[in-house]
């Protein structure tokens, strides 16, 4: 075991797979010699050579399109989109090609590609370095969509993603790269050094895709969260003193509906939170499923706390961000409903 930040855990996952599977190849903008703008691939080109870890032109459609061709050939590309906000030029390749090739060819071809991208805000990045586009992927049949919230999960899930025989979107909550972040932006940043999930095996291990994790057991209300919002939820629970059960979804597609339903049937209440904008966000899907499965158990309407329906602002970042205060308020309202 070793102490790792989420960046180190992600790097370690790629390191393990480059070593273990010769078909693995890593590429993206600035990820080669330089090691990536977030340093996730630092040292890998030096260790494995330029044929396995290399820079690409600034063309996200090419990054994914080349990866699709390589995956169809039989390689295992794991590519980086520098920010999730820059995945849009690749959206055609991701949704109409990668996600479909197995089905449309009736398994004549397949597309085992992992597409990593830093997501979420909290770094004063403005509208083009802060987006959370998960709902644009969860609507696409054929994709698997993952978002880890700890170094331990990030490594185990990234290796599992790279071993998946179909395309996986791997969303990395960049505000968690260096430490758990609970939304209290004005207080000192925490690091992974003291967090139990900063303890990460050095070698190969995987975590099952499609399994949520109960981060805090509780009886009063179920909170569904993923990525940064898991820690925001923890803070809100601590501050309100409400005995909530916090579920970290980890895998958005497929969804661990069993764990969710069991919890909501127990608590009778549910709050869904995400950083993405509200309308059409993934919370809608979660609420639709939960109300269908738990209708007769629900004692209050299911609440959602999300980013507002505006482009992610730069200076007003913390007005946009659904922090512990807003989540806490929703918890209280849901308890009082």
């Amino acid at each position, binding site marked *: 075991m070793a102490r790792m930040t989420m960046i180190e855990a992600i790097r370690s996952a790629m390191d393990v797979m480059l070593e273990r599977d010769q078909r693995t190849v890593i590429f993206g903008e600035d990820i080669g010699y330089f090691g990536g703008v977030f340093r996730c691939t630092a040292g890998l080109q030096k260790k494995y050579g330029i044929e396995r870890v290399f820079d690409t032109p600034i063309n996200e459609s090419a990054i994914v399109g080349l990866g699709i061709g390589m995956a169809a050939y039989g390689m295992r590309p794991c590519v980086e989109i520098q920010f999730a906000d820059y995945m849009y030029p690749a959206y055609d390749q991701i949704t109409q090609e990668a996600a479909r090739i197995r089905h449309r060819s009736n398994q*004549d071809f397949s597309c085992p590609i992992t597409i990593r991208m830093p997501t979420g805000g909290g770094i004063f990045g403005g509208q083009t370095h802060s987006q959370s586009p998960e709902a644009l992927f969860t609507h696409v049949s054929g994709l698997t969509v993952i978002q880890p919230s700890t170094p331990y999960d990030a490594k185990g899930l990234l290796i599992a993603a790279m071993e998946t025989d179909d395309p996986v979107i791997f969303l990395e909550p960049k505000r968690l790269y260096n430490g758990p972040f609970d939304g209290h932006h004005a207080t000192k940043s925490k690091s992974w050094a003291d967090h139990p999930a900063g303890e990460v095996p050095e070698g190969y291990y995987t975590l099952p895709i499609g399994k949520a994790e109960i981060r805090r057991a509780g009886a009063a209300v179920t909170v569904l969260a993923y990525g940064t919002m898991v820690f925001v939820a923890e803070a809100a629970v601590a501050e309100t003193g409400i005995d909530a059960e916090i579920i970290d979804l980890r895998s958005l597609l497929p969804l661990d509906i069993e764990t969710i339903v069991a919890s909501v049937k127990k608590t009778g209440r549910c709050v869904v939170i995400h950083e993405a904008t509200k309308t059409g966000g993934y919370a809608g899907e979660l609420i639709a499923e939960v109300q269908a499965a738990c209708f007769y158990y629900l004692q209050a309407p299911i609440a959602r706390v999300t980013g507002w329906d505006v482009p992610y602002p730069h200076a007003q970042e913390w007005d946009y961000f659904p922090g512990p205060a807003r989540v806490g308020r929703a918890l209280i309202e849901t308890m009082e409903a």
Partner: protein
Amino acid sequence: MKLRFPTPHSRPGEAPDFSDLVIPAPDALPVPPLTLAAADAWDYANGLVRVLDDSGSAVGSWADYLAEDAGDEILIRGLRDMLTMRAIDRRMQNAQRQGKTSFYMQCTGEEAIACGFQRMLKKGDMNFPTYRQQALLIAADYPLELLMGQIYSNELDPMAGRQLPVLHSARDYGFFSISGNLGTQYVQAVGWAMASALSGETAIAAGWIGDGATASNDFHSALVSAAVYRPPVVLCIVNNQWAISSYSGIAGGGEATFADRALGYGIPALRVDGNDYLAVLAASKWATARARGGHGPVAIEWLTYRAAAHSTSDDPSAYRPRDEASAWPLGDPLERLKTHLNRRGIWSDARHAQAEAEILDHVVAVQKEVETHGTFVDPKPLSPADIFRGVYKELPEHLRRQRQEMGF
């Protein structure tokens, strides 16, 4: 300051006019070295690689370069492939008119390109075709039962009804699953070629795109990537003059040749008479040899004409002269090869008529058999639940539940 809106020379009711198409003599362009650089390729991107002269003789350096690769057997096979393709096109077009299939797209007039190119490929090479390269399959001896089964979306369809007719997939025949979205597969071809090289293998890839679709963004992503990594890929541009109702000028073809586009990226390019089967063989031989030799990517603009409608949903008489196809200066590839073979003394009109009849019989026989496995008017439906198979390698729980909800 006035904008320019490109318009074709002639519209319905007007006389076809190809007077601005310059057709150089077959010996105008010598065979360049395989290491040809883009900076030296201007003549190749603006001239026309040809072998057959107007009388149907094979002449010039490209004819010499072909040598035994244009032997009698190969050429007769080429002619038979093209005849087969054309017979299938006719039959499938009619089958659609009879409601037996939902849709069809012919490649009439363009058969030489895919038929000839396929001859220079090896087992393991991979095409990333558009919907108008079905002749690649014919020339690869793809079973006609599967080809037609796909078009009828019936029990024989290797894609189990998932895809629109003509969007084939045949890995073992070097034919990548066709997407309905234009352009996307072009950069995938580059990726595939990179993978081959990175894996230390010798297979090459070919990307295919239409004149119209060169305007799509992934044309650019493919060319930039190919220029940067120099993988073994042949980037084919089939300039058949039309993109549904838009002539090639709407794709920018009036300003420079499509082959010129590649030069701008530093990728050498040839412009080739795509209706001359021997020119196709020669250019394909050169381009695939270049790729296999590790000299990097190359682009080929195949000059041809889309003689048929865009698809069974299209009526070209609404936007171009009815007789434009017959006015196309590069003629019909079948006729031209036939003339050459006749001239060469290894073929005759009589043998041709006989071959045509045999091929038609064969195609009709296969078609009849294939139709017993279901047509759109007389379907033998697959299990509806089958649509859930292969969305992912393993059926996930939520799709299992949906299948159950469907009743299976």
